[in-house]
């Protein structure tokens, strides 16, 4: 494995985008930062600007208002990037399927690398999702 690939795997910076989720998934993402799960031990940092990010964590079923923002944020993330759909909402739109306000699920809009199912997925699952995505794409 080249040095570059290795450092990419070792330092995935996260950007969290809420596209109309119910908070459940967002809480679990933030919970993954806290002492019990501590994603920083894997080199992950939650950054505030999409320009710094490598991994885009998207929650929620993509509401109509958020649609242009999802695309814009996706474009702002520099290559190479990974998109992880967190929660059933982003993966399939589950509970809100059939609503007129929903444009999702996410993979209709931007390419998704890994789906983490669950409503909400546990923080362990989210961490696992990030690691899998990064390994698969950069490794």
């Amino acid at each position, binding site marked *: 494995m080249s040095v*570059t690939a290795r*450092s990419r795997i070792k330092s995935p910076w996260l950007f969290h985008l809420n596209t109309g989720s119910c908070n459940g998934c967002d809480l679990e993402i933030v919970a993954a930062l806290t002492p019990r799960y*501590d994603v920083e031990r894997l080199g992950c940092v939650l950054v*505030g600007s999409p320009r710094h990010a490598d991994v885009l964590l998207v929650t929620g079923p993509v509401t109509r208002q958020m649609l242009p923002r999802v695309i814009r944020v996706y474009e702002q993330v*520099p290559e190479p990037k990974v998109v992880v759909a967190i929660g059933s909402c982003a993966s399939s739109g589950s509970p809100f399927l059939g609503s007129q306000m929903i444009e999702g699920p996410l993979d209709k809009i931007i390419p998704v690398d890994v789906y983490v199912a669950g409503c909400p997925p546990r923080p362990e699952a989210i961490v696992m999702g990030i690691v899998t995505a990064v390994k698969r794409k950069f490794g």
Partner: protein
Amino acid sequence: MNTIVALLATFPIVFFFSLLFEGIDRKIHARMQKRIGPPIIQPFYDFIKLFNKERIVPVTAASGIFTAVPIIAAAVSILGAAIPVVNLITGTSIVGDLILVLYLLAMSSVMVMIGGSSSGNPYGAIGFSRKMTMMIAYEIPMLISIASLSFNPCFSLAYYDVVATQIRMKSLLAFTRLSMAVAAATFLLCVPAAADAVPFDISEAKTEIIHGSLIEYGGPYLALIKLAKAASNFTLAFLAATLFFYVPALFEGYVSLGLGVALCLCLVTSLIFMLLTTTVPRTIFARLKIGQAFKFYWLIPLTLSMLSVALSIVGL
């Protein structure tokens, strides 16, 4: 010619130690929060990763300035870090004096500021004005505290002279004179602000203005800016450790330390100072508001620095 070669040779050392220090800082910060924390070499991973990412220059940015700034900032702050190291290794004051070092450090901050405001993002502009205010607040006491060295008889502003004096006196500068102790305190109080650490990281507060000046930077540019930050933090700690607390001076006359050991001792003391001035406040304080920080710096460190000048003139 020789000096340039020496400076260039020091660049990798500075590069290595500044990133290593940052890694240790992050690790200890995490441990204090009951977390495991990233591996110590994490900053190296970050640097390499960022360096190999796509370069994006936003359409709103003035692209020339925007791209040039990170390079200048990194070069300048590494140079600033290299000068004291070279002087210490060669044991002479061949290149530059303290004012130059401080100037280079300030220059790197100014560069990042300009880069942020050239990005065309309103948060970058706010970051600019906040950093400007902060620099006025901390640079003045910091400069005065360094300048007060020269008010003492037998001291000058040349870096190695100060170190040599400590060796001659076989004691730490901060312990020999009252004025110097006050100056050291001032300098240490200014370090967190210069290093942009909480509670004084107002100019790049993540939750308030989304990293301020850094908001539009990504990829290699961000890597360079991060390097510049790490290098200037390293310089600040190194200056504090060697100017006021040159520990190898204590052993002078008892055992003769080799250059390597002396350098290691200096690095260890600077690490300790960095942990004390950056990591600990970062962990135990909340961020201040710009007005509060400004008031703090003009109330306490500025008064202290004046006091140190006054004391040196009196000859204490």
